């Protein structure tokens, strides 16, 4: 497992978490290169299909991250995201996608450190868990 490099797909909101990622960069905080950021305007835009597609395509983990509840730039997008993620957490682990592979986080615009720490934590966790089954088995 030591040369396994996990791939994490992160759907992040423009106003908070993407800005936090930018801040991590400008602050020269090192964090693993395993994350692929997908910038959306709001976590409320994250269709459950994006998470499902990412996992079926072989992503080892999916992070959805946005503004803290109450701070959403569009008022209630993250509340909707929370309900949709609750749904996904009920469905996907039953088919073998370990719960740890699905992460919902609230990382605000000034939380560059927290962003870097979250990515680091997830990458390490995925190295432990190993490659997703979708990478190893045929998906129809």
């Amino acid at each position, binding site marked *: 497992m030591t040369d396994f490099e996990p791939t994490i797909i992160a759907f992040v909101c423009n106003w908070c978490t993407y800005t936090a990622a930018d801040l991590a960069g400008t602050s020269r905080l090192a964090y693993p290169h395993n994350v692929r950021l997908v910038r959306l305007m709001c976590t409320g835009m994250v269709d459950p*299909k994006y998470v499902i597609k990412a996992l079926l395509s072989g992503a080892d983990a999916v992070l959805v991250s946005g503004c803290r509840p109450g701070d959403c730039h569009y008022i209630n997008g993250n509340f909707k995201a929370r309900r949709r993620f609750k749904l996904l957490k009920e469905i996907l682990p039953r088919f*073998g996608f370990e719960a740890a592979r699905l992460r919902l986080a609230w990382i605000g615009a000034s939380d560059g450190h927290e962003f870097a720490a979250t990515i680091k934590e997830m990458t390490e966790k995925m190295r432990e868990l190993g490659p997703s089954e979708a990478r190893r*088995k045929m998906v129809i």
Partner: protein
Amino acid sequence: MPQSYKIEVPGADLGATLKNFLGAILGLEEVAAMLVPAWLPMKDTVMPVLVTDPAGLETADPLAPAFPLNAARLASRLTRKPAGGLVAAVLRPCEIRAFVELVKLKQGSADDLVIIGLDCLGAFPNTGFTQAAQAHGRGLTDKFLASALGSGEGAVDGIEPAAACRVCERPLPLGADVALGLFGVWPEGGVLAEGRTERGAEILGRLGLARAGAPAARTSAVEALVRAKTKLRDEMFARTTEATSSLEKLTAYLAGCVNCYNCRNACPVCYCRECVFTTDVFDHEPRQYLQWARRQGTVKMPTDTVFYHLTRLAHMSTACVGCGQCSNACPNGLPVMELFRTLAARTQAAFDYEAGRSLEEAPPLSVFREDEFPEVTAP
């Protein structure tokens, strides 16, 4: 305690009695039409028909073991705008639950529909019904009733009720306006008629029936039936959970799927006017297929089979009423109902929701609260 009445069944001819009862309701001034399962004139098959004249109820047979489609969709078509009068619909409990879900999605109106429900004995899958109807014609219903209310568990000539019906632990028409009770009632106590809503009570009051309480045997008969069905349901949940507990197993479970989307078409609560799977989101470029094939070695065609089912689970499992039309409709005999019911039980429980239980309960993904589900963001 809903008002209840006893319907006498002269000569134990349940079919004729029900037809008279329905005719009396259709004869009421405010009832413009009735949707009811009936034998078609041109062939020995049962389909929902819409009639305005009580004479049209001649071949009505709501107890026939036929369930070709979930009539909630039809009720939705009949009430999405005012039809110029009340429509009465004879619906199975799962059809009533599905209609409730559609009303919540503004695809039907409960005010414009009078729902007549019966204790449900289940039905055969389409192929089974065709076979049984060919053998027994219109006498099938009596044979089915004898088996279902006796010890035959509804089987006729070895044809069993559909899997969805066998595990259905909700056989009472709780959401109906007028509910007809058979379990623990028929044949000794005739048929029990309950007005479960104000409108239902008002209608029953005008039919000249004898007031009567539910027979003593009813409660225990219903409890025993529900207990037995719940056990079968839980066994089905356990089997299905085990059969799909990894991606590899899920893939094997769905390997016969050809993305015909008939399960989606038959599903009464798959509510989108245009399903994303028929849009150009899934109209992949030929180059894309080749790229996938290069990357993965082998690509089953068409693609997106597991994706489709997972998406449908995400989109409608909270509305699933367990009618089993998905399995009924599958041309390749995939156990779709088992998969969806098993997941639906979990997703609905996660939101403390039961599809079709109440018009007052908003669909879980259409509402949210400021503080909820803290466990979702726990690392």
